[in-house]
């Protein structure tokens, strides 16, 4: 039994219906449903191996699902269809390990996809890249290569790189887990601003403060299912979600 979502008044930006995914005998996702409204921020939490990362990677088709359907802004996410590239271009993804292109400068990292995927001219792409680097507070690092940047700076470039595609949704897969403590704040700050600007966001994160302040809802994953999905306040304080509360008390 999966948890039904609170009904949304607007058409959801992202819908996942009955997602199943196995790796051999291991069940990574077991009939997962989730609706995310436009401008909503949903945080996925839960023990490791519970399916959070798999779920988020299925949403933009980096992993294929065995069963179930995903739509983003009404478009079907089908990894076996040519349309997948065009849909991925509308979904931003930020990785735990940043995955910046090491042979390109910060500016080139951000400008590449707008140029080759969207088809902007070099000048337009660079213009857009500068705007986004400015937005994440790195206008002074445009000509630095990733190896010359700190982890926090690299992750902010990665966020700018995704934003330059003007995505409808942003996915973050443990964006601060690979960072030293003093760099986590700068990345969360950027994400906070992004949420405030009305971006639809789905993220895997264990930063309690951030989750409390920014998350509209928290989805608690365990054994490939969403056991509970509610506002952070209800999840932490209410009695309805005993298992989730127990988890939070342990990790936080």
């Amino acid at each position, binding site marked *: 039994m999966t948890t039904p979502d609170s009904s949304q008044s607007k058409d959801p930006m992202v819908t996942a219906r009955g997602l199943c995914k196995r790796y051999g005998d291991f069940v990574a996702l077991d009939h997962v449903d989730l609706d995310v409204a436009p401008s909503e921020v949903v945080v996925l939490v839960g023990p490791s191996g519970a399916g959070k990362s798999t779920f988020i990677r299925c949403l933009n088709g*980096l992993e294929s699902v065995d069963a179930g359907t995903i739509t983003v802004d009404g478009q079907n996410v089908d990894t076996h269809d040519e349309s997948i590239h065009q849909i*991925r271009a509308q*979904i931003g993804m930020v990785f735990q390990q940043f*995955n910046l*292109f090491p042979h390109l400068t910060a500016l080139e990292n951000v400008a*590449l*996809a707008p140029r*080759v995927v969207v088809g902007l001219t070099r000048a337009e792409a660079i213009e857009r890249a500068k705007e986004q680097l400015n937005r994440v507070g790195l206008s002074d690092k445009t000509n630095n290569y990733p190896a010359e940047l700190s982890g926090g700076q690299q992750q902010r470039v990665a966020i700018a790189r995704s934003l330059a595609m003007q995505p409808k949704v942003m996915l973050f897969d443990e964006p601060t887990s690979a960072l030293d403590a003093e760099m986590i704040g700068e990345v969360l700050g950027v994400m906070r601003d992004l949420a405030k600007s009305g971006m639809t966001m789905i993220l895997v994160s264990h930063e309690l403060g951030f989750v409390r302040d920014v998350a509209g809802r928290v989805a608690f994953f365990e054994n490939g299912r969403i056991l509970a999905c509610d506002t952070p306040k209800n999840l932490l304080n209410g009695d309805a979600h005993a298992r989730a509360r127990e988890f939070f008390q342990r990790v936080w």
Partner: protein
Amino acid sequence: MLIGLTAVVRSRLLNAIGRVYVDVLRGVPLLVQIFFIYFGLGKVLNLDRFTAGVLAVGVGYSAYLAEIIRAGVLSIAVGQHEAAASLGMSRAQALRHVILPQAVRTILPPTANEFIACLKDSSLVSIIGLRELTRAGREYYSQYFVDFQTWLIVGLIYLAMTLLLTRLTRRLERRFAVKGFGTVGARP
């Protein structure tokens, strides 16, 4: 280059063609390939000695180069492919803009190796009567009977050509070097 890429595209047919091409050409001595192309294909297609010789050495070495290119592409972390895909790039766009520019750095030194070996193995085509450097040396020797000097000169000419290639690749390596990144020792 193209053959190397057949191994990394998502097409079973192309994968298989590339595999067979590499396995066959790598598994047969170059000398035999030269005979085969000159006496076999050459008779059918009416190839002259020079075309047949160049073709045989070129095709033979392409198999080795293909494997080097494949290794270069495989050496790039999966996260790079994923990051490119998540930005909406097709497989071809990702290869061209993200994967190959990085793989070049890994590919360059072994590629230089192959070109140098290729240059030296070009002496094999003398067997089908092509007058290249080694054969020229032998003719000179049989005419004037100065063995040591002849082969010293021939050796030095080969060395000069390969050193030129070596210098060229060093320059390329430096050109592709990126600050703080990669497998390239030489820095600008």
